[in-house]
């Protein structure tokens, strides 16, 4: 037992590092999900319900946002999935820097620890996940813990970016050309480029916050010549691209799941890679000002940013077309992974289409800071990205554990999840459109919205129950689930299925190093 624990804690193997990321991100997900339940219960009727003061609500809001984005979505996708899959899919025996990889995952865990300490320290952080000054500088809450959570997890993801960019460039199996890589590898490569460039800016922004609050500097202090909007610019310069750090690997998972479960090629592979992934990487740094539309700016800037924001839907659209096109003439097997993937296509459609009015300056001036925005980005980020992760977990579960997680409980929780989230977020679109502000603990001025809030709360409770059952199912399946009969239960064509065992062992490939023919592709189902 002690030896086993040592082998896990100090592991430098990319698959085990990946699973450590997975455990940490599921922990963050469950606690942050609990916060969501508390907030929905708080809003079920007008007035204070379960919170003892509005401050409680702010702390829940802080933890929910920070932990879901920094602790669950980003580490789940670029930590767990990237770690577990990239070396397997490119035919490498590990990453370029295995010890750095172990360091990354423990820095991430350190960030999780700092975030969880929120619940035991006095003066809990209460600055949302955005940490806007002047409130974050003036609050009595511990803004330092917010800053350090960002630092630890941010530094961890910069190191991961370096590791994987180098790994993908230099460690592909002999014969694997750029156009023969899995879509997941391409999409994640794009996400890592974005992280490498933009996370440092976030780290700098929150460091300035830390200095302003605790060392008395003047970055965001207008009284001494600082600029309070500077923070919002730096923050969103990172945080808009962060959407694509989440979106791209999620899309990558969907490509691999859909192609394998449909036994089909990826439609328009080159357009998706060179137009979609690289289009996003190129444009993503030029749209952040759309988060500041209502903060005051000249019209020419607003209109310019509207154009770039709408422009980025072109590469996103290329990826979506490829996803749908990969279903054309596919022989689909609806296992749990494929059901989640199919649900993602719907969720992305809703999330994407409701983003268009928000890009339009004339509409967003009215919709900004309403529950409409809240519902929109939950469809894109929370639901789409999380469902894609669930698709991936079910799909690669045999590769991790040697067992299948599919079964009645997986199917039931899938339908509860899908129905629950739609019950939760559609009412928020409606009341958001009619003026319900987001982030408020109470809505005494809008008592007529109470029924909508109640419906949303019921939906959240269904979802919460389903998510908890789903995680229990995973834990049960990892120990007792049906054994995968061979290394390739889905009869897929990419390297992690054709060349590695279930579960994949040390050094990844029991045979000799993979070498690939010129006409090999991970999606060669026609032959």
């Amino acid at each position, binding site marked *: 037992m002690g030896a086993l624990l040592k082998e896990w804690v*100090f592991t*430098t193997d990319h698959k085990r590092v990946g699973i450590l990321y997975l455990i940490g991100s599921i922990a963050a997900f469950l606690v942050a999900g609990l916060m969501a339940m508390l907030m929905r219960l708080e809003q079920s009727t007008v007035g204070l319900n379960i919170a003892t003061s509005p401050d409680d609500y702010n702390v829940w809001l802080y933890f929910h946002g920070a932990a879901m984005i920094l602790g669950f979505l980003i580490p789940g996708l670029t930590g767990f999935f990237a770690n577990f899959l990239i070396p397997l899919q490119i035919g490498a025996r*590990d990453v370029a820097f295995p010890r750095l990889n172990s360091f990354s995952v423990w*820095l991430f865990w350190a960030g999780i620890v700092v975030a969880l300490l929120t619940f035991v320290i*006095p003066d809990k952080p209460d600055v949302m996940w955005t940490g806007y000054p002047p409130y974050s500088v003036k609050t009595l809450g511990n803004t330092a813990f917010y800053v350090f959570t960002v630092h630890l997890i941010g530094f961890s993801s910069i190191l991961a970016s370096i590791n994987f960019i180098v790994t993908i460039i230099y460690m592909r199996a002999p014969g694997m050309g750029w156009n023969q890589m899995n879509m997941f590898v391409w999409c994640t490569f794009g996400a890592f480029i974005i992280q490498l460039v933009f996370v440092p800016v976030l780290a700098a922004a929150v460091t300035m916050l830390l200095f302003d609050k605790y*060392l008395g*500097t003047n970055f965001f202090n207008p009284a*001494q*010549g600082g*600029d309070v909007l500077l923070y919002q610019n730096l923050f969103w310069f990172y945080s808009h691209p962060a959407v694509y750090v989440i979106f791209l690997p999620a899309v990558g998972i969907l490509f691999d799941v859909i192609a394998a479960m449909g036994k089909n090629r990826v439609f328009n592979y080159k357009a998706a890679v060179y137009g979609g992934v690289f289009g996003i990487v190129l444009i993503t740094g030029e749209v952040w000002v759309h988060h500041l539309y209502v903060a005051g700016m000249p019209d020419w800037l607003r209109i310019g940013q509207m154009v770039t924001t709408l422009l980025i839907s072109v590469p996103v659209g290329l990826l979506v077309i490829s996803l749908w096109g990969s279903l054309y003439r596919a022989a689909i097997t609806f296992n749990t992974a494929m059901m989640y993937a199919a649900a993602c296509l719907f969720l992305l459609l809703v999330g994407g289409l409701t983003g268009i009015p928000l890009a339009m300056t004339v509409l967003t001036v009215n919709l900004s800071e309403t529950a409409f925005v809240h519902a929109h980005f939950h469809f894109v980020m929370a639901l789409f990205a999380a469902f894609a992760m669930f698709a991936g977990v079910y799909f690669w579960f045999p590769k991790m554990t040697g067992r299948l997680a599919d079964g009645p409980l997986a199917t039931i929780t899938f339908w509860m999840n899908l129905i629950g989230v739609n019950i939760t977020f559609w009412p928020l679109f409606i009341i958001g459109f009619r003026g319900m502000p987001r982030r408020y603990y109470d809505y005494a001025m809008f008592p007529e919205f109470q029924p909508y809030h109640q419906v949303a709360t019921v939906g959240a409770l269904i979802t919460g129950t389903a998510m908890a059952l789903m995680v229990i199912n995973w834990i049960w399946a990892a120990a007792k689930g049906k054994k995968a009969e061979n290394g390739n239960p889905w009869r897929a064509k990419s390297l992690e299925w054709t060349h590695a065992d279930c579960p994949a062992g040390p050094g990844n490939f029991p045979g000799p190093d993979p070498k690939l023919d010129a006409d090999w592709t991970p999606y060669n189902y026609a032959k």
Partner: protein
Amino acid sequence: MANHSASHAGGAHAHHWEISTYPAIVAVGVLFLVPMAFSAWFVYHSLLLTVLFAGIGTPLVLWGVSGWIGEGMSHKALLPGVAVAGLPVFIISEVFIFLSIFASYWMMRLMADVWPPEGTPAMPFGLPIFMTVVLVTSSVTIHIAEEKQEKGDLAGFRSMLMLTIALGLVFLACTIYEYSHLLGIGFVPGTNAFSTVFYSLTGFHASHVLVGAAVFVAVLIPAFSGKTNLTFTKCAGIYWHFVDLVWFFVVSQVYFW
């Protein structure tokens, strides 16, 4: 698990789960040393907790880092020399940290009615030029050191490395001298917008000089017992050239604009 012998290419063909204790130790050390100790001091104003956390964190970080370097010097990488490709990628992210501070500076300065803001003393002229000369020279000396190591001239390598470290320390001494002078006349980080930028830019850069010098020391110590690793030296050198290059931007923006 039959034909393992078919491939020896990378030399790191694992039959067992690879482990390393040091990265996790460093991470735990960082957790105590940075978030915990900082918060104990600045947020909760507790000397006892600060000393406790720093006392746990510091030895863990030192132990972990030195062990990690030792492993890095002796273990063979899956892809030998790959660190030389990784370091420039790391530098890209560093560039963006510096750019954030520069962008903040430009935004504040270009929005201001008067510049420099009230309370800014005259900046020195000769000192920054001297510091520039010192840093450029050290870039040359580390380059020579690398060449000596490649030729196998260990003694020459060590002396050029020591010269580089000395030049780095001279640079840091200049920074300390200037800071103590400016702080003495009341120009502190909180004085105005320029003081905030001044200390952030020069301080962040100086921290890079310090890290670079520390890395050179880590290269130097094993070199006395004849142990060298060219990849390690090259990485340290690339980093040092970057620190040198950034200084041109810092010095031109802070002192001569």
